[in-house]
């Protein structure tokens, strides 16, 4: 149990998907101008990463490895992810139309979020068991959502600040992200994985 807890903290904070592994940076820069959209994106991505990682784990174990089809991994995983996104879209539309309205165009774009494919490839490379893989995927995506919301908060403040014209927009956002990454390096003593 203790190993699981440490592994999850490691995946969420120490090896944060965005700030340490550099995955999902497009959405990190693209949809963090407001806290509520960032939170919605984080929620939807958490769901997709967890579901598609479970599916990818099953596909890897029972299909690709069992029949020696390892070279088809990239193609298969991206298909599984695209289906998982489609499935998420249909489920949310049926279960909660208001949430579906809120997420709107961000939903289909999760397919090209490299955090989803990245986490799936990481847990295949780490040769994890099913439970461990699911925990890892969930913790990683919680870390993703956390950083998205924190960064959106920073950018809301940044929008009111006087930024030199040359730095306006993405450059100052990058510098701020760098400082956030420095802050997250402080977690590196907590757990290793």
């Amino acid at each position, binding site marked *: 149990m203790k190993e699981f807890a440490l592994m999850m903290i490691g995946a969420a904070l120490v090896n944060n998907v965005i*700030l340490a592994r*550099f995955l999902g940076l497009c959405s990190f820069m693209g*949809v963090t101008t407001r806290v509520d959209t960032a939170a919605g994106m984080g929620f939807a991505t958490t769901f997709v990463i967890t579901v598609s990682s479970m599916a990818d784990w099953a596909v890897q174990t029972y299909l690709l490895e069992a029949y020696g089809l390892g070279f088809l991994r990239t*193609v298969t995983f991206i298909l599984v992810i695209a289906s998982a996104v489609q499935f998420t879209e249909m489920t949310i539309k049926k279960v909660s139309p208001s949430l579906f309205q809120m997420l709107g165009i961000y939903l289909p774009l999760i397919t090209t979020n490299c955090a989803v*494919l990245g986490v799936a490839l990481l847990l295949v490379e780490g040769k994890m068991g099913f439970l461990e893989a699911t925990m890892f995927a969930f913790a990683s995506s919680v870390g993703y959502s956390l950083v998205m919301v924190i960064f959106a908060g920073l950018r809301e403040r940044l929008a009111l600040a006087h930024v030199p014209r040359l730095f306006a927009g*993405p*450059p100052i*956002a990058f510098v701020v992200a760098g400082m956030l990454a420095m802050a997250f390096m402080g977690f590196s003593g907590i757990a290793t994985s």
Partner: protein
Amino acid sequence: MANSDYKTIVKDGLWDNNGVFSMLLGMCPTMAMTTSATNGFGMGLATAVVMAASGLLVAVFRNRITTEVRIPVYILIVAAMVTVVDLGMNAWMHELYKVLGLFIPLIVSNCLPLARLEAFAAKQPPLPAFLDGLFMGLGFTIALTVIGAVREIIGSGTLFADASLLLGPSFKAIELQVLPSSMNVLMMILPPGGFIVTGLLVVGKRLLDLAAGKEIQMAGAHAL
């Protein structure tokens, strides 16, 4: 197409519309694989090969791909090209393959190839589409090499370290020791350095564009 159009493709890809510094696409490998100039160079070249090949393929089949299914088809074409590059690098450039690791299959979800397929290759004949993919890819390579060089010089004092190991023995000559190791700023090759150097280099490109009398581009980072 006239010659001037080809010139525009080359200029757009390498500088005016540079995938990293102007459009801010493909940020993940840009940050993750630029801890040294050699890594950036290798990552950029792998992406350029995928972009040129998938641009050519999409342009060849552009009249057969219907609008409704185009995105899945593009992703599958890119994924197929990535698999080819992945297996090829594993076979012939194994050292570099081990360093780039996860980020070779992740070219699939890099926004830059997909953005160029959608914006350019889907509407153009094969040759311009191939060239657009190639020069956008080379522009990406230049950007990654520059970011890698800056981070490497400040962070570990070297330039193109391990080039002979990763790219082949003939690259031994470009390995340099620029600064003594006592002056290293480790922060630059750690994750925060990637963000900060990229941000400052975007400002650098804006300054150069401004000096050349061009409008500076405030766009970017809107695409997902």
